[in-house]
């Protein structure tokens, strides 16, 4: 282990670190939006669109991100659709993550006790009021654990972006290894970098989950 090697590589890792964070952030945000939209459409059984979304969820969930990225980055330009690597990464992560988030939200909505829905109806709520005051607030808190797991999962998935030449953390490490042949140092730095992102995040999410599980609604 050579400290000077590590020191010299820090700026590059910092750049990769920032990019990993940024790509994760945008991709997860996109996933949450897509997932919420999908799950709402599915919850209200909007005709036709809900079928289309179900198809999308199955397709995205059951194929590897790697292939999805290959398609976006290498195959689509052949038929004339060309996006930058970053856009491909964002679209790919959102495509995959949206389906995972949709499942998480749907799971939450489905987990609401039927007597809660009955109780809402019994005081005269209409569909929209039910969604707004019963399904949504309770479903969201029920889906928190699954959402949290997806957040971690999606951040890890950004490591695959190296195949489309996005210089995020994993790509940075592999590149440095290719140039300077210091696998021990660079892989160690890589592991540490992921740990710096994921350990605190995982702790925060666990606390959040526990909060929600013990139903500390409103306080």
């Amino acid at each position: 282990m050579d400290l000077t090697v590590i020191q010299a590589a820090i700026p590059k890792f910092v750049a990769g670190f920032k990019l990993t964070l940024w790509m994760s952030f945008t991709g997860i945000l996109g996933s949450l939006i897509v997932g919420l939209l999908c799950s709402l459409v599915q919850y209200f059984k909007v005709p036709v669109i809900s079928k289309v979304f179900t198809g999308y969820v199955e397709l995205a969930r059951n194929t590897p991100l790697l292939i999805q990225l290959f398609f976006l980055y290498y195959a689509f330009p052949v038929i004339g659709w060309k996006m930058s690597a970053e856009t491909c990464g964002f679209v790919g992560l959102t495509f995959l993550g949206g389906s995972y988030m949709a499942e998480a939200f749907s799971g939450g909505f489905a987990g609401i006790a039927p007597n809660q829905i009955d109780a809402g109806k019994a005081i005269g709520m209409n569909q929209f009021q039910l969604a707004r005051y019963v399904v949504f607030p309770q479903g969201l808190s029920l889906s928190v654990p699954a959402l949290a797991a997806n957040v971690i999962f999606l951040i890890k998935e950004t490591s695959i972006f190296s195949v489309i030449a996005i210089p995020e953390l994993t790509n940075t490490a592999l590149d440095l290894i290719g140039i300077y042949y210091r696998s021990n140092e660079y892989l160690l730095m890589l592991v540490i970098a992921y740990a710096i992102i994921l350990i605190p995040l995982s702790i925060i999410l666990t606390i959040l989950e526990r909060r929600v599980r013990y139903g500390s609604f409103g306080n």
Partner: protein
Amino acid sequence: MTKEILRIEKLNKFYDKRQVLFNIDFSIKQGEVLALLGPSGSGKSTLIRCLNGLEHFSSGNLFFAGKKLVPTEKNWQRLRQKIGMVFQSYDLFPNLNVLDNILLGPTKVQKKNHDQAKQEAISLLQRIGLTDYTAAYPRQLSGGQKQRIAIVRALALHPELMLFDEVTASLDPEMVRGVLEIIKELSEKDNMTMIIVTHEMNFAEQIADRVLFLDDGHVLEETDGKQFFVNAQTKRAREFLESMKF
């Protein structure tokens, strides 16, 4: 003759192909208390849930205050504001505190003035002796307290008819009394019209003006309250009453 609040004609209900309610006919007048009794699985819950559209009946008619209901979702939703219902499961919304649980219906559904609704809610809470719990969350309450608040939540909409489906069945025995007393007071002091499903035979005996005895989805008998418990008409009902005592 007092006003008829609700009437059911030839109500039939199927779950898939299985019929669970057969040609149910009955009506209830203003201020009356109707007890719905019968063995487990006889269709009591299904019937009472049909009355406010939580289950859709397969055929038959429902008249409310003399007017026939056209069973669209919109009409049901309007009707439900006039029919309060309390269930066996503690069904308060866990994400709202006691006051917000009570206010949700009046302010969001009926769009009443918030301050006025709040004043009214607090006076209802006073009546059941739970003003201290205005800001508490459901999980901080005992089962008996939750059920009393569920009753208040239904009352806050000023219903013309209240439905109670085994509201004490999940309660600790010592909690039962408090809840039943509220219901009794509602009938006696407020002259509230009510349909009650219960397994507390002593309670039913004290409160019911009339008893509808259900077995296997059929109304086996419809008898005056006092008479039913002393001398039920059908053998099945007498057997049932017997099994409820140890």
